[in-house]
Every structure is written in structure tokens, then in C-alpha cells.
């Protein structure tokens, strides 16, 4: 029993220490962002790597999620003769929840894991140490551009995911299932609010998720043990931790934004 308690205590302490390190890491990362004013080229290259290269998966996933929403929504609404609300249902689900959350999860799998592996391998092969020996700070040269690029990319990807999703919903419900197209758009236009829905969901949520996803990915890579096993574990941890953090924060943010207090 004592051993069990001690084990639990050790585990909790371990986690707290790691959380503390992660926060110090974030502070140093934020401090290094200034450097990007001198070297905007580094940022642009990373925007391409984490943003543009993530587009295919975001486009395809968004389209399919929107189409599924159209199908499911129709099946439920048709019994009440309320299929004209389908546009609202699809748009609100995507804007408030599915867009930001799924984009963040897909981003963690596509870009976050790659960031962790890249940084972890740079550490394992002493590239980061040799950079420091050349008096170049890896926080400025390597980590900061990736972090900022990721934080910019996630909200934009979320916007694209959501827009494509709505299009997918339109294709299924209006073109395939015969819902009235005018009603689809008009209802959506009437019910979706710019600040309360789009602002909170697509902007604020995705900004928070983007910060979480990139922070976790870079921290795990930077702290990875410099072995192949260490890097592979860190990559797994990035995806798991980001997913849990995104879902947990989504609940909190949803409660704050849309909860009826």
C-alpha cells in the first residue's frame, strides 16, 4: 500500500515537473519569436511545410465529414419535415465543433508527428548541438519558425475544413437528396452568427488548438531521448497528448462559449 502511494506520488511529481519544463519551453519559444522579423523566409518555408502540405488531408476529410453530416441530418430531420434546417445543422456542427476539433486532430497526425520526429532526429544526430556550437540558437533558427507557422496554419486549415464541409453537406442534401437549395442557404444565413459561432469556433477554438498542437509537438521532439526508440515514443506521445488536450480544452471552451450559464 505504501509502495503504491509512493508510486502514485512519484508519478504525479514526474508529471508536474514535465509540465513545468513544458511551460519554460513555451516561454523560451515565445521569446525567440522576435527573431522571425529578421528572417521571415524561415517562417514562409515552414508555412509551406506544415500548412500547404496538410491541405490534401484537410480538404478530403472536410468534404467527407460534411457529406456524412448531410446524410445523417437529413435522416433525422425528414421525419419532422424540417429538412429546410439542414443547412443550419451542417454549418453549426462544423463551425462550432467538428471543424476546429477534427482539424486539430488531423493536424496532430499529419504535421505534429512529423515535427516531433524531425526535431527529435535533429537532436539525436547532434544537429541541434552542433548548431549551438556554431553560436546559433535552435530556438530561434529551428523551433520558432515552426511554432509560429503551425499557429498560423491551424486556424486557416480549420476555416478551409469548415468551408469544404459545408460544401459537402450542400452536395449531398441539395443535389442528391433534393432539399431546397434556397432554404439550405437562407436558414444557414439566418441562424449562424458571425461572432458567437464563427468567431468562437473557427477563430478562438482553432487558435487554442493550434497553440496546443504545436507546443506539444515541438516540446516532445526537443525532449525526446536521443535514440530511435526515444524518437518513436515521442512521436506517439505527440499524437496522444495533443488529441487528449484538444478534446479536454474543447469541452472547457464549449462550456464557456455555448453553455447556458
Amino acid at each position, binding site marked *: 500500500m505504501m509502495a503504491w502511494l509512493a508510486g502514485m506520488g512519484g508519478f504525479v511529481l514526474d508529471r508536474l515537473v514535465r509540465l513545468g519544463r513544458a511551460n519554460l519551453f513555451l516561454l523560451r519559444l515565445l521569446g525567440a519569436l522576435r527573431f522571425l522579423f529578421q528572417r521571415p523566409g524561415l517562417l514562409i518555408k515552414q508555412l509551406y511545410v506544415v500548412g500547404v502540405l496538410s491541405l490534401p488531408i484537410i480538404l478530403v476529410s472536410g468534404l467527407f465529414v460534411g457529406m456524412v453530416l448531410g446524410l445523417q441530418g437529413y435522416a433525422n430531420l425528414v421525419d419532422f419535415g424540417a429538412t429546410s434546417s439542414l443547412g443550419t445543422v451542417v454549418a453549426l456542427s462544423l463551425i462550432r465543433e467538428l471543424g476546429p476539433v477534427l482539424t486539430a486532430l488531423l493536424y496532430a497526425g499529419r504535421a505534429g508527428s512529423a515535427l516531433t520526429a524531425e526535431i527529435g532526429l535533429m537532436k539525436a*544526430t*547532434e*544537429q541541434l*548541438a*552542433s548548431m549551438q556550437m*556554431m*553560436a*546559433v*540558437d535552435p530556438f530561434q533558427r529551428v523551433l520558432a519558425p515552426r511554432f509560429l507557422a503551425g499557429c498560423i496554419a491551424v486556424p486557416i486549415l480549420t476555416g478551409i475544413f469548415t468551408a469544404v464541409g459545408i460544401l459537402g453537406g450542400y452536395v449531398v442534401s441539395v443535389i442528391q437528396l433534393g432539399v431546397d437549395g434556397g432554404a439550405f442557404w437562407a436558414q444557414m444565413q439566418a441562424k449562424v452568427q458571425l461572432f458567437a459561432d464563427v468567431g468562437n469556433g473557427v477563430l478562438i477554438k482553432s487558435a487554442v488548438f493550434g497553440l496546443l498542437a504545436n507546443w506539444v509537438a515541438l516540446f516532445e521532439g526537443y525532449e525526446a531521448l536521443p535514440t530511435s526508440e526515444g524518437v518513436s515514443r515521442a512521436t506517439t506521445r505527440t499524437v496522444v497528448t495533443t488529441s487528449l488536450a484538444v478534446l479536454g480544452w474543447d469541452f472547457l471552451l464549449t462550456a464557456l462559449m455555448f453553455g447556458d450559464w
Partner: protein
Amino acid sequence: MSLSAIFPPELTPDITAVTVRGLSFYRDGRPIFDRVDLDIPRGKVTAIMGPSGTGKTTLLQLISGQLRPDAGRIEVDGVCVHELQRRDLYQLRQRMGMLFQSGALFTDLSVFENVAFPLREHTRLPETLIRTLVLMKLEAVGLRGARDLMPAQLSGGMARRVALARAIALDPLMILYDEPFAGQDPISMAVLVKLIRTLNDALGLTSIIVSHDVKETVAIADYLYLISAGRVVEHGTPRDLDCSASPWVDQFMHARPDGPMSFHYPAPPYFSDLLAEASA
């Protein structure tokens, strides 16, 4: 037997590039260094030798400020490296090159861009001048023709020479070599030996070589330190050490399997270890 063998004693203070006093360093509670004193003379090739795992790499990391000692002082050019702020440390490192054991080339950059990296980061030179400088450095290591290759396409020896070209890109005053000869074929070994000596003399560098390859190291070193189990066992010129009376030095310098140095990692007595399982 000491620095005065190559320098008159009254000159010694100005003539040391690195001074280590009472250095102690622990890893996971295990002492790697225990009150070590070292003097690295300026403008010479100094070799630090010892068996694998004695902490040679660790020593270079301590000298270059990548690690902090648990006790003692390490001075480079008269400043204490482990008391410097990051900014000052980076300033110091611009005068210091380090050749990593693995080469540590940037895998996403070509050979040319690897060598150009420190120049681009620390200078505002025009592209034509950078090109000239990079080609000069690559010519010095004999790899001007390999400028467009990627690091993955290089052999081990070539990668190390590219890393060397990169380390001298900013014309440092001191170069630290971590196992420059490990895992090289005889030809690239000979090339490296010659290169290190030539660079040292032509550029007036201070070179510190850490190695366990006795033959090659003795061939180019002006001064040698032998370390083992956290202590300096012996130091002197290669000639001093070659005829040292110490059995340990004799064993290491002439690569004899039997001698005072054990091949075993520290362990409890063999017999009691075998019995421990049964009694547990």
C-alpha cells in the same frame, strides 16, 4: 613531463588556451571526472586520450559550455565558460569550432549550404563572397567537387571532412575534435591526420583532439593527456609517454589486453554475484 617540456615555465600562463582546475562532474550520481586539472597550450595540437566511456566527449562538452561542471573551473581564453550568459557564450563559440563524432551535418542542406551555414548566420556577406569562402574551405578539405551532394550521399570520411570545413568556416581560434579517426578507413584516416596538422599550423589554431586511436593521435599531438576513471593518469609529450614507467600508460599506449586497466565495467565480485540469485 609538464608544459615546461615545450614552453619555458615563465611563459605558461599566457600560453594556455584552456585551463581546467579541480573539475568534478557527475552523471546519475556517478563521478565522470574527479578533481581533474588540465592545461591546453595555445597554437598546439593537444590530445586527450582514454578508453571509451571515460568521458572524453563529456570533457569537450564541458570545455565548450554545453555542460556545467559540478565543481571546479574551466577557463577558455581567460574567461570562465560556465559562468557566461548565453549571449557571451555564443560570442565565445564563434571563435571555437567543434567537430562532432557523428559529423552532425544538417541533413536537409547540401554540402555547400552546410559550410555556408555559419557564414550566413553570422555575417552579412554578399553571395559571391560567401561562395568564394565556402569553396576555399571545401578546397582545404579536398571536397570542392562534392559541393552539390547531400549529406546522405557522403561516406563517413567525407562527411567528417565536410564537418571540418564547416567548423573552420568562421576562422575559429580553436577547434575541438571528437574522435576524428573513429571508424575511418586507413586512407581517410591518413588524410584526416594530415589535415588536422596542416590546419593547425597554417591557421595558427589551437587544436584539442579527443581520441582512443593511439597511433594516429600520437603521430600529430604535441602534448598528450591520458585520462581514466575520472583522473588524469599521465601527461607529457608523446616521447615522454612512450617510455613511461607506469604500467597503465604502457598498457594503453601499446594496446595490451592485460594490465592494470580492467576490461570489466565495475561490478560486485563475480562469485558472490552468481550466488546472490540463489540466496534471494
